[in-house]
């Protein structure tokens, strides 16, 4: 037990390793923070939907919640049920089997809600295009607010995408 806490103390905060290389991230972080405060009361609940992805995107999304990116500090948290969510983070091309579940997830999310499609596959089906198991991009099934390109996109990209989506909401409201 002491060993654990000694290590915790020695390590210190790992979030925001401030430096020139990450300046953009810092800026982004500050921007997200502000936006998050303004929109949705600085509390954004995300439900992640894997509509058929190769799990590359998932790994990046996991990175988002890790200590380095630490999305929680912006009030972004991942939740276990679309009922609790404000935003759906959809990855992968939509497979045949996931079409209905994805639509149901969308329906199960209370308004106001956003959809961010993460990764190339979500937009173009990527290498899976034309597969008999795939019915198409996410926007064929549910309305998508923002696409985040990349294969996979970095956590920062995802964060940016979320931000963009929030912007759209504020634009709509305005």
């Amino acid at each position, binding site marked *: 037990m002491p060993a654990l806490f000694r290590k915790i103390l020695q390590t210190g905060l790992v979030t925001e390793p401030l430096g020139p290389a990450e300046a953009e991230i810092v800026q982004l972080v500050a921007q997200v923070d502000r936006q998050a405060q303004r929109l949705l009361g600085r509390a954004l609940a995300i439900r992640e939907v894997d509509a058929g992805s190769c799990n590359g995107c998932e790994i990046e999304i996991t990175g988002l919640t890790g200590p380095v990116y630490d999305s929680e500090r912006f009030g972004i948290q991942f939740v276990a049920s679309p009922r609790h969510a404000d935003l759906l983070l959809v990855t992968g091309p939509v497979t045949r089997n*996931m079409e209905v579940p994805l639509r*149901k997830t969308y329906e*199960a999310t209370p308004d106001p809600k956003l959809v961010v499609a993460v990764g190339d596959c979500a937009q173009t089906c990527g290498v899976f295009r034309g597969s008999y198991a795939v019915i198409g991009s996410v926007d064929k099934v549910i309305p998508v607010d923002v696409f985040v390109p990349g294969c996979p996109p970095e956590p920062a990209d995802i964060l940016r995408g979320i931000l963009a989506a929030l912007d759209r909401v504020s634009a709509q409201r305005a």
Partner: protein
Amino acid sequence: MMTVLFLVMIAAYGFGACVALLGGAGLDRARLVAAGAATGAGAGLALGAVVIASGQPFALLIPELLPIAGGLALRLDPLGAFFLIVIGAGAIPAAIYGAGYSKAYEDGHASLRLLGVMFNLFLLAMSLVTLADNVFTFLLMWEGMSLTSYFLVITESSEDSTLRSGNWYAAMTHAGLALLLAAFVLLMNGGTGAFSDLRAGAVTLSPEVRNLIFVLALFGFGSKAGIVPLHVWLPRAHPAAPSHVSALMSGVMIKLGVYGLLRVALDLLGGGPTWWGALVLGLGAVSALFGVLYALMEHDLKRLLAYHSVENIGIIFIGLGAGLIFHSSGLMTLAVLGFIGGLYHTINHASFKGLLFLGAGSVLHATGTRNMEEMGGLIKRMPWTALFFLIGSAAISALPPLNGFASEWLVFQSLLGGLALPMPEIALAIPIAVGMLALTSGLAAACFVKAFGISFLALPRSREAEHAHESPLSMRVGMAILALACVALGLAPFAVVPMLGGVLAGLGGLPDTRPVFTLDLSVQAPAGFAQISPAWIGVGLFVLLALVPLVMRLARANRKLRVGDTWGCGRIGQTARMEYTATSFAEPLRRVFAELYRPAKELTIDFHPESKYFVQSIEYKSEIMPLFERVLYDPLLRLVRRVSRQVRRVQAGSVHLYLMYIAVILILLLVAARWF
């Protein structure tokens, strides 16, 4: 006034029985029978109320009847009056309910005539038990009550399981009678058997005899009350009986075991050594815990309720046990508190368990099954029944502000008083009892989440449940009365508790301590140990329940509401087979208490013929064998069978052998006569 009420009671029950016996078929008869029973019960209730209010006992002696045992002696003192009130309170709704419920028997699969006659006679016998004032009258009425209830249990005699239940009931109740007979006859000590004589004579008995009487009476009345390990008949008989009868048996009849114990231990014997109380307390605690643990494993709604009767009787006995312990130590105020707790729980249990059995009856009526695994979704199909059952469930789970909480609080408070006991060995047992009581009430809550949740909520699990319908008006009225009683008794213990103090005053030298109630409507434990005000808490909860939506509206919360599919992780089409079942609900507790349940598991996996990596079907069976059946009753039955197989050999068929018996006994007796 009292005599009039008494006569009205007798006449009404008699009328009900006669109508049932002689009347033609049809609903009118059912109504008249119910009217007779309800009137009788009402008169009994009024009689009890008058006696308690005036403090003036009602007495009647008919020496012509039962002349060999001192005549038919009746006397209603406040203690009896209280139980007469319990009978009345339980019987009126049950009778009203029964008018509708027994319609189901018109198709002839049970004898309506027998049901009507026995129902009225049962109520009459029960009422007279509380009035009996000598040994023989008591035993007569007691046995009459057992006998009539036995016939009520086997109303649906066309089913073999009903008859088996009846056998269990008859056996246990008769064993109890045997013990009671022994206890009372010992108590008579060759005297007249009038209770006043017993009271006077009990002082002169030797301590051993007093102890023996107490133990006999405890187990004798315990077998009726259903304390562990004599509870085995309850989960069999209650489900077998028609539901309004179950309500009466569970809500009222088993309470007469409590009455009997109080009458004998406290009134006639005048209390005893501390270990009496400790024994009662221990049996109560064990009953409470075992009852609820077995209830958790039940998926037959009425069996579940029956096990809960064991639990609640246990709670009542905890109160009585605490009372007896304090009584023996001279801590009269605390003793009164314990007894009051027991008595209050008695009437509370009568109301909520009666309600629950009636509710279960409505469900049975609507779906034709008692198996919870085949119910579900009934809250939409039978909203009134569901509401009443919910009230009953919350009450039995001791949730404030309903009545179960009030009485369990009193029992807790009396146990907390154990601090004042001069003897540490007993005092140390009390925390254990507190723990068991708390565990019991927690498990009860879990059990009723299961009972209500699985039966009434979610999707129907069978076609029958899907096509369930609300019960007829009379049944709903019956339930509504009891539901109101649950709420009223929960909110207003301040009105009842002082009355209970009056009921107890004078029994076994108890002082007339009536727990104080102040203008803030609180119930206060004696000596200011603690106080609560269920009434204000209830009001507060209602106010808050109204306030929260109001504030939300004022704060402009989003009031939009959309009805959608259930969120099921995206799967398509929700069916009842996906729901949690009663078995799975209870599974964690089954594993926690596996040592006790010792579930027998049987897993049959049917593999695909081609490869055992594919499975065609999996069958999982798990059964629990109740502990006492395993360690007590089965061996006993086996023993009886073995002995009787041996004894049957006596009658081997050979006349030579028979003559041999005569020769042998002749020689034996001659030798004995000559030399011994």
